[in-house]
C-alpha cells in the first residue's frame, strides 16, 4: 500500500495547482486510504496521534455545532475541544464554516462525528489546506514550511500504513551488520559499503533535512564484488537506487532509478548475484542471529523464513518448499470497529484467568461455542491474552481443563499466526508432554493439535526436540483390523489416527523422518495400513509417501509388504487416499523389485484408470508419476498397453501442469523403448506436442522430453515429422542449457535424430555455432555429458564435410585429452568417436601426436565388452598411421589383440586382425626397407 500511495500522492501534487482534487478513481481511492488511515491512526499509534501540529489544519466544513457532543465546549457559533495544547489553544475549533484541527486524534474524532460525510470532509481538508497554504515561493529547503503539509500527510500515511516501515535504527543495524561482512575478496558479501555523510541528526537520519521530509534516511555507496558501484537511498518507503549521490551536499541524483525494496539485503540480492549467492549461504545464519539481537528480527524473519532457525537451515527435505512461510506478526486489531465477539471473548478470557477449575471448564465450553475457525475469533483469543492462558492450562493437573483447552487449540491452530505464537510460547513442549497422559481423549487431542501446529519447520523441530516423535509413534500401537472391538480398543484406534495425523505433519522434515524410523514407526505404520478406515489410511499413507523420499523407507516399504496394501488402496473411492498411494508408488518404483510387485498385485490397471480423473491435477501427477516409474520395466509396459495407457498418456501431453507433463513424458520415453510404441505415439498424434515441449523452461521436463524425442526418433516416419517441426535444431539448442542432465539427455536425443534424419549432415551444418558448441562441451566435467557428446560426434562425423568442420574446431586434441578416463561408458563412446574422426585428413597422425594411442591400448584391457570392441576398432583406424603402429607395438598391443581375434564377435575379430595386420605390414615394410638398404 505504501508504494502505491506515494505514487498517487505525487500525482496529486502535480494536479494541486488547480487547488481541487480531480474526481479520478485514483484520487477517490487515495482519499479513501487517507480516511481509513486517519480513522485508525489514533488507536494504532496513540502517542503520535496526540502530537500537536505546529499549524492547524483548516478547511470549510459542513459540520455544524450541533453535531458535536461531549468533550467539546459548544456555544451557538463556536465549538472548542476540551483538549488544549500547552499554550491553551483548543486542539479543535469550529467557527462555522471553518474548522481548525491541531492533532490527529481530534481529526479522527471529527471524522467519526461526520459520519457519512467523512469522505467529503477529508477531501475538503486536503483541498482546504491548499487554498490557505499555497505559497508563491515554494522552496524545498524550508522543510517545516506549510507547503509540505500534504507531503507530510501522505508520507505519514505511507510510513504508518506500511507494515514493516523502515526506520533509521533498522537501517543502521542493517548497515552495521553488512559492514562486518565487507572486504575479504570473494569471501566477503561486498567490497565496501559507506555512508555519503558522516553526520547524523539526532533522529538518526543522515539525509539533509529537506530530503528527510521525503522520507530519505541516508545514502549509501556500495561496491559489490561483481558489479559496478551502487548508489542507494534508504528511505522509510524502502531502499532503492538513486541517480548517483557520491557525497553529501550534491544537489541532484535524488530521483529513484529502481524499484523500492523493503530492505537493503533484498535490493542488493537483486543487483549482485554474488551477494545473493553468499547471503543465501552461510551468512544468512549469522545475519539472522545478529539482527535478532538488534531487535529488528521481524523484517528479516520474513525474508529468511525459508530457513527459520540457524543451524538447521539446509538440512531439511525438498518438500518443505511447498509449505507455508512464516508470515510476519500482525498488529493487534484496533479498537474502533471490532466485532462484538471480540469483547465477549475478552470477557471469557478474563474468567479463564480468574476462575477456579469449574468456572474454567464452563468458560472453555462457552468459548467453544464461538466460530473458532473464524479469524476474528482466533485473533481475539490471541490479542486478549487467551492463548497464553490456554497454554498454561495444559501444564495444570486438571485433565478437564486440559481437554477443554486442547479442544480450542486444535481448532484455532488452523491459523498460521496462532501456530507461531504457540511455538513461541513454548506450547509444543506442553502439548508433547500430554501425549504421555493416561487419558486417551487427551492423547488424541494433543496429537491432533500437533498435527495442526507442525505445519512449519520450527514447530516440527520443537516436536522432535521435546521427544514428541517417539511418543507419537507409540500412539500408533493399536489393533486396527479386528472385527469386533471393545470401546477401549476403539479409543485406541482414534488415538492412533490422531497420532498418524501428527506424524504426517512432522514427516515433512528430514530429521523427523529419521526419528520416526528410529522410533520404530515403519512397522506400526505398515500394520495400520491394513486398516479398513479411510480416516486412518489417509494420514498413514500420507506419512509413508512423504517419507518415501528416503531410501531406507523405500526399502522398508517393499520388504515389509506394504506395496500390496498401497496397491489395494489405489482402488479406494477417496481421491486423496488414491493420490497418496500413487505418490508412494511413484517414489518407490525406482526399484525394480517394487515395480514387479506392483504388477504382481495388479496395481497397473488401477493406475491407468486414475488417468481418467483428469481434473484432479494432484492425483493425475501422482498417477502419471507412478506409471512412469513402473514403465521402466518392459513387462509393465506390455501390461499397460493392454489397458490402452499409451493413447491416454499421449492425450495428456497438452494443457496439463508441468508436474503432470514431466511424468507423462517420462512414461512416454519408457514406452517408446518398444519399437511398436514409437509408431503408436505417432499415430496418436504425440510427436508434435512432444517436439513443442522442447521449448519448455522446466529442466526436469526437458530431460524427459529429450529422452522421449530421442526414443521416437529411431523410427524413420517419426523422424520425418520431427524434422519438419525443426526438432533437430530445438534439441541441439538445448545443449546450451546449463544443466548437465539436460545437456546429456539432449545429446543422446541428437544421436538418434542425426542417425535417422534424411539429410542430417546438412541440417547439422546449417545450425550456426552448433559444432563449436559440441566441441566446447568436450571440456565438460560431467562424464555422462562427455559420453553423450562423444556419441553425438560419432554420428555427426559420419558426414565427411561435418568431420572436416569438426576437425577445424579442434575436435581431435579435445578427444585425445579424454582418453585417460576410467569411466567405461565414456571410454566406449570416446573410442567410437575417435574411430570416426580418423576418417579425415591427417587426423590419425594428429591423434598419435596428441598422445591418444597409448591410453587406448590400456583401455583395451577393460573388462567391458563394448569398450574392448570400440577401442579395437579405433586402434584399427589409428594403425593405418605407421607412427601409431610403433606406439602400439611399444605398448604391447599385439598380445591382447591376438586374444580378441579369437572372439565370437566378428567385428571385433576383424578390427583386431586388421590392427595386427597393419603392425605386421609395417614390420615387413621396415624389414624390406632394411634389406634394401643393406643390399645397396
Amino acid at each position, binding site marked *: 500500500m505504501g508504494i502505491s500511495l506515494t505514487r498517487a500522492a505525487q500525482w496529486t501534487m502535480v494536479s494541486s495547482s488547480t487547488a481541487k482534487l480531480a474526481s479520478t478513481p485514483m484520487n477517490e481511492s487515495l482519499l479513501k486510504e487517507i480516511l481509513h488511515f486517519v480513522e485508525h491512526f489514533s488507536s494504532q499509534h496513540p502517542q503520535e496521534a496526540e502530537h500537536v501540529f505546529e499549524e492547524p489544519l483548516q478547511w470549510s466544513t459542513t459540520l455544524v455545532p450541533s453535531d458535536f457532543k461531549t468533550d467539546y465546549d459548544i456555544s451557538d457559533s463556536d465549538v472548542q475541544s476540551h483538549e488544549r495544547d500547552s499554550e491553551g489553544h483548543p486542539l479543535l475549533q469550529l467557527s462555522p464554516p471553518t474548522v481548525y484541527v491541531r492533532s490527529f486524534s481530534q481529526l479522527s474524532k471529527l471524522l467519526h462525528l461526520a459520519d457519512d460525510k467523512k469522505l467529503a470532509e477529508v477531501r475538503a481538508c486536503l483541498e482546504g489546506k491548499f487554498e490557505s497554504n499555497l505559497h508563491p515561493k515554494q522552496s524545498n529547503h524550508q522543510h517545516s514550511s506549510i507547503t509540505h503539509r500534504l507531503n507530510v500527510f501522505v508520507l505519514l500515511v505511507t510510513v504508518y500504513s506500511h507494515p514493516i516501515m523502515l526506520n533509521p535504527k533498522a537501517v543502521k543495524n542493517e548497515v552495521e551488520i553488512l559492514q562486518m561482512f565487507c572486504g575479504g575478496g570473494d569471501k566477503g558479501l561486498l567490497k565496501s559499503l559507506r555512508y555519503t555523510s558522516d553526520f547524523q541528526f539526532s533522529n538518526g537520519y543522515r539525509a539533509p533535512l529537506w530530503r528527510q521530509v521525503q522520507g530519505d534516511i541516508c545514502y549509501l555507496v556500495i561496491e559489490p564484488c561483481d558489479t559496478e558501484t551502487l548508489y542507494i537511498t534508504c528511505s522509510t518507503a524502502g531502499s532503492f537506487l538513486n541517480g548517483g549521490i557520491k557525497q553529501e551536499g550534491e544537489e541532484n541524483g535524488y530521483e529513484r532509478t529502481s524499484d523500492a525494496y523493503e530492505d537493503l539485503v533484498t535490493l542488493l540480492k537483486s543487483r549482485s548475484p554474488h551477494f545473493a549467492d553468499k547471503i543465501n549461504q552461510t551468512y544468512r545464519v549469522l545475519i539472522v542471529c545478529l539482527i535478532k539481537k538488534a531487535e529488528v528480527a521481524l523484517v528479516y524473519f520474513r525474508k529468511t523464513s525459508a530457513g527459520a532457525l540457524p543451524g538447521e537451515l539446509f538440512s531439511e527435505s525438498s518438500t518443505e518448499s511447498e509449505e507455508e512461510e512464516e508470515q510476519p506478526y500482525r498488529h493487534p486489531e484496533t479498537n474502533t470497529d471490532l466485532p462484538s465477539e471480540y469483547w465477549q471473548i475478552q*470477557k*471469557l478470557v*478474563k*474468567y479463564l484467568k*480468574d*476462575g*477456579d*477449575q*469449574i*468456572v474454567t*471448564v*464452563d*468458560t*472453555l*465450553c*462457552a468459548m*467453544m*461455542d464461538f466460530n473458532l475457525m473464524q479469524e476474528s475469533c482466533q485473533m481475539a483469543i490471541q490479542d486478549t491474552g487467551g492463548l497464553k492462558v490456554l497454554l498454561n492450562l495444559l501444564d495444570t493437573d486438571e*485433565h*478437564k481443563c486440559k*481437554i*477443554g483447552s486442547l479442544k480450542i487449540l486444535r481448532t484455532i491452530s488452523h491459523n498460521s499466526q496462532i501456530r507461531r505464537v504457540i511455538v513461541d510460547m513454548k506450547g509444543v513442549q506442553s502439548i508433547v508432554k500430554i501425549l504421555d497422559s*493416561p*487419558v486417551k481423549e487427551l492423547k488424541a487431542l494433543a496429537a491432533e493439535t500437533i498435527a495442526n501446529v507442525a505445519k512449519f519447520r520450527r514447530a516440527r523441530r520443537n516436536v522432535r526436540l521435546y521427544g514428541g516423535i517417539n511418543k507419537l509413534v507409540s500412539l500408533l500401537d493399536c489393533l486396527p483390523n479386528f472385527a469386533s472391538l471393545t470401546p477401549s480398543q476403539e479409543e485406541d484406534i482414534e488415538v492412533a489416527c490422531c497420532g498418524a495425523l501428527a506424524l504426517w505433519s512432522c514427516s515433512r522434515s528430514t530429521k523427523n523422518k529419521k526419528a520416526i524410523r528410529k522410533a520404530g514407526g515403519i512397522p506400526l505404520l505398515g500394520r495400520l495400513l491394513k486398516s479398513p478406515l479411510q480416516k486412518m489410511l489417509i494420514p498413514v499413507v500420507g506419512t509413508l509417501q512423504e517419507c518415501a523420499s528416503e531410501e531406507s523407507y523405500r526399502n522398508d516399504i517393499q520388504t515389509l509388504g506394504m506395496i500390496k496394501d498401497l496397491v489395494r488402496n489405489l482402488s479406494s473411492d477417496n481421491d486423496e487416499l488414491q493420490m497418496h498411494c500413487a505418490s508412494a508408488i511413484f517414489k518407490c518404483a525406482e526399484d525394480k523389485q517394487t515395480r514387479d510387485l506392483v504388477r504382481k498385485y495388479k496395481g497397473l490397471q488401477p493406475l491407468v484408470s486414475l488417468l481418467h480423473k483428469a481434473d484432479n491435477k494432484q492425483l493425475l501427477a501422482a498417477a502419471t508419476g507412478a506409471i512412469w516409474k513402473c514403465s521402466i520395466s518392459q513387462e509393465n509396459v506390455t501390461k499397460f498397453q493392454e489397458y490402452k495407457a499409451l493413447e491416454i498418456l499421449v492425450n495428456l501431453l497438452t494443457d496439463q501442469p508441468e508436474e503432470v507433463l514431466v511424468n507423462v513424458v517420462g512414461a512416454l520415453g519408457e514406452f517408446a523403448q518398444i519399437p511398436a510404441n514409437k509408431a503408436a505415439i505417432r499415430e496418436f498424434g504425440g510427436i508434435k506436442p512432444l517436439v513443442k515441449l522442447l521449448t519448455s523452461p522446466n529442466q526436469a521436463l526437458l530431460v524427459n522430453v529429450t529422452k522421449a524425442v530421442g526414443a521416437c526418433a529411431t523410427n524413420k516416419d517419426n523422424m520425418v515429422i520431427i524434422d519438419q517441426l525443426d526438432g533437430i535444431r530445438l534439441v541441439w539448442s538445448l545443449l546450451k542449457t546449463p544443466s548437465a542432465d539436460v545437456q546429456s539427455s539432449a545429446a543422446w536425443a541428437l544421436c538418434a535424430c542425426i542417425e535417422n534424419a534424411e539429410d542430417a549432415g546438412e541440417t547439422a551444418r546449417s545450425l550456426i555455432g552448433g559444432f563449436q558448441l559440441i566441441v566446447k562441451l568436450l571440456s565438460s566435467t560431467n562424464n555422462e555429458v562427455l559420453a553423450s557428446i562423444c556419441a553425438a560426434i560419432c554420428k555427426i562425423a559420419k558426414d565427411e564435410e561435418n568431420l572436416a568442420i569438426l576437425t577445424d574446431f579442434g575436435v581431435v586434441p579435445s578427444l585425445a585429452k579424454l582418453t585417460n578416463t576410467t569411466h567405461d561408458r565414456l571410454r566406449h563412446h570416446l573410442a567410437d568417436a575417435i574411430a570416426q574422426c580418423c576418417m579425415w585428413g591427417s587426423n590419425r597422425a594428429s591423434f598419435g601426436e596428441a598422445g591418444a594411442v597409448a591410453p587406448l591400448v590400456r583401455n583395451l584391457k577393460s573388462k567391458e565388452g563394448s569398450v574392448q570392441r570400440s577401442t579395437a576398432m579405433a586402434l584399427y583406424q589409428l594403425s593405418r598411421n605407421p607412427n601409431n603402429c610403433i606406439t602400439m607395438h611399444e605398448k604391447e598391443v599385439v598380445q591382447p589383440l591376438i586374444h580378441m581375434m579369437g572372439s565370437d564377435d566378428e567385428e571385433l575379430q576383424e578390427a583386431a586382425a586388421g590392427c595386427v595386420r597393419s603392425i605386421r605390414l609395417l614390420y615387413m615394410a621396415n624389414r624390406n626397407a632394411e634389406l634394401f638398404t643393406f643390399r645397396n
Partner: protein
Amino acid sequence: MSKISAVNKRATQTLAENISKQVEHFSKKEVECLIREFNVLVAEQNNSGRAVHGLDRGKFISTLHSIFGLTDDRMTGRVFRTFDKDNDSVVSMKEWIEGLSVFLRGTLDEKIKYCFTVYDLNGDNAISREEMLHMLKGRLIRQPNEEDPDEGIKDLVEIILKKMDYDHDGKLSFEDFEKTVKDENLLLEAFGTCLPDFRRIEMFERHVFQEQFEQ
C-alpha cells in the same frame, strides 16, 4: 470369636448376593468387598462415640474428602443428600453401594442423572439461576475494583444459561442438562465437582477390591 466372624461372613455373603442383584456394575464379590469397606467405615465412626446403623453426614463427608478427594463443602453436602435417598440423614449400606455404583462405574446417562440431582438444590427438577449462582459463587477470584463481587459470576450464569437452556424457560430442566452434557461431556460437572477423579477411582478400587481379595 472365629465362630461369630464366620457367621458374619456368611451373612455378608447373603447380603452381597441380594444387593448385587439389585445394583448395576458390581459383581457379588465386589459387593462383598464394598460391604466390608462400609463396615470398616461404620466401625471407625462408632469407635469415636457415635452409634448409628449407617454413615452419618460427618463421616460420609470426611470419607468423600479423604478417599475421593471431593473437598468442596457445597458439593459434598449435596452428594450426601443424593446418596441418602430415603432422607434419614444416614447413608445405609444399600445406599452406599447404590451410590458407589454411579460414582465408580456409572454410565454417562447415570452420571447425568446423578449430577442433575446434586445440582438441583431444592429438588424441584430444575436448576434455577439462583441455584447456579449459589453453586458458582466465589469461584471467580480477584475483582477488587468491581462494586459487585458477584458481577462476573452473574454474567457467567447468563452465559451458561444461554448455552444450556434449550427450551428458553430461564432455568435448566433435566432435558436441557442432558442434551448439553451429551453434546459436550465436559459440562457434566458444570456447577461443581461431585464425582471423583479417575485416579481416585483407580486407587479406591485397588484398595477395596484387590487388596481385600488378597487377604
